[in-house]
């Protein structure tokens, strides 16, 4: 699983939801190694502005075509510049990075996938892998809980639909699916249908993952949360991407995990949630100036 620096060609760039784009990149070496839940570091453009690469999860891995897809939301200058690129451009990538989702044992029972907003990005590839896993018994469902603030931020159903996948849609404003949060929908399904997942995969706002993570911990449900942190390198060299680690032996002393190499996929129990600072929660996307 060697990491690569590869000059990729932008094959497709498509607006797929409000301020959200899908990029398809020809990058055969990376595509050949990548696994669901891993990520790549993308150089936005040549030169120093911006200086650092941006991390993005694999949205789809198309090994045969030698291509990978990412799904990204425009939240700042780097992602805005990305959205202006035309097919044919060359983009430098480093990948695959990080641990990826643990897919072992996924056949043991129903699994829940929770996506908040652009958190759907890594879960698409995961869905494809789960559903094509031969060890999975046909009866055991894969539930995707997928919510956003409003319908315009959601991917079109056709992009996600799959035979054995149950999608539970929700929006904060009720413009699509259940009116409320992903967490509330999960609550309802658990309560009303009596489903108890053997594993919960999640990606989305930290507050959502925290809430789901604590619940899963209490319920003894195995979790695979895709977490974020600011990153300079993406491959373990800068030590910038720290997250407080749960350390049962020393609950009060600080100890850190590194998102790019210990993660980005973590179990809820490995994180010391109450040591996460306000500053690590991504600032609001809206920028007035």
């Amino acid at each position: 699983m060697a990491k690569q620096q590869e000059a990729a060609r932008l094959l497709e760039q498509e607006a797929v939801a409000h301020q959200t784009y899908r990029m398809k990149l020809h990058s055969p070496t990376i595509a050949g190694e990548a696994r669901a839940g891993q990520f790549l570091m993308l150089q936005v453009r040549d030169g120093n502005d911006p200086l650092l690469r941006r991390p993005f999860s694999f949205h789809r891995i198309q090994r045969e075509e030698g291509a990978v897809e990412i799904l990204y939301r425009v939240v700042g200058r780097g992602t805005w510049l990305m959205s202006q690129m035309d097919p044919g451009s060359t983009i430098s990538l480093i990948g695959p990075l990080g641990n990826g989702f643990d897919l072992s044992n996924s056949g043991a029972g129903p699994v829940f996938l929770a996506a908040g907003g652009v958190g759907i990005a890594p879960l698409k590839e995961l869905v494809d892998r789960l559903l094509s896993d031969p060890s999975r018994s046909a009866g055991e469902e894969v539930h995707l809980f997928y919510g956003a603030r409003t319908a315009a931020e959601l991917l079109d159903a056709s992009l996600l639909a799959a035979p054995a996948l149950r999608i539970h849609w929700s929006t904060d404003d009720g413009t699509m699916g259940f009116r409320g949060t992903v967490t509330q929908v999960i609550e309802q399904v658990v309560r009303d249908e009596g489903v108890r997942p053997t594993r919960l995969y999640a990606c989305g706002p930290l507050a959502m993952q925290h809430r789901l993570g604590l619940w899963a911990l209490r319920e003894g449900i195995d979790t695979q949360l895709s977490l974020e942190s600011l990153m300079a390198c993406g491959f373990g060299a800068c030590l910038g991407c720290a997250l407080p680690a749960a350390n049962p032996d020393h609950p009060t002393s600080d100890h850190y995990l590194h998102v790019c190499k210990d993660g980005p996929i973590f179990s809820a129990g490995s994180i010391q949630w109450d040591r996460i600072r306000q500053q690590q929660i991504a600032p609001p996307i809206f920028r007035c100036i």
Partner: protein
Amino acid sequence: MGQNTTAADRSPDLSVHLGPLRLKNPVMVASGTFGYGQEYEDFLDIREIGAIVVKGISLAPRSGNPPPRIVETPAGMINAIGLENVGLEVFLDAKLPHLRDLGIPTIVNIFGNTVEEYAELARRLDGQPGVAALEINISCPNVKQGGMVFGTDPTLACEVVGAVRHRTSLPLITKLTPNVTRIGEVARAAVDAGSDMLSCINTVAALAVDIYSRRPKLANVIGGLSGPAIKPIALRCTYEVLQAVRCPVIGIGGIASATDALEFLLLGARAVQIGTANFTDPAVARRVVEGIERFLEVEGFRSIEEFIGALDLECTFPFAEASCQSLDLDG
């Protein structure tokens, strides 16, 4: 050989002497930006690098500062990692052997909270096979205890370096901070106390805030600026240090290309270290070595030694009387 020079004979000699050290080329990677080497093995053959300076080591392991630890700035980044490291023990047992086996010159960057800690680190690293030199970090701007305070005062710098000097016969490099009024004074103090070489610069003290959350962007508030943005400052510091001392100087700061590296060498630095650029281009060190070689070839230098310190400070006036004679139109 005689007339019979081969292509290999003509390819320029990149090797440099750095006091007691001899390196196959003048390109090192800077402490804290190259881990313990392994992180980069997928990207390049790290034996192509002149020397590796490992992440700063303290006696005991350190978990570092709370996040956020980094922030991007124009042509730079600020870090406040807080010198997270595995500690001397683990370094010696788990990290050093691998580097030693690769045969790559390994420079160990050390720091302590007290003069005694620096001295103890030196004592325990002395004679360790595979350690080519020690780099004494008296210049880290983002930890409260120790670090930069030693580097901002010639007397304290002298104390630390002297204490280290007494405990080891390893070549010593003292790493200087730019956050001082007169870097030359600290440089002289370090050399007087027994430092064989100097490296400069460490990061520039810096800060970033978020106007929406109204908070500092780093949990530590203050951090160290690195990357291309600081290259002009690093060149100036290197220039001042070279004027103050005669020992070998290693240039650091914003190097991301062979051109950048050659700028420091032109001033008289005998080697360079690449830091932040490793993050965005993990094979940058190889690119820099190759670029230096190509430059020397094309510009007609037989060795990097010929180029080191070749800065021309004389001001010449190409159109002054003398030169003009031959330019007469109707001659």
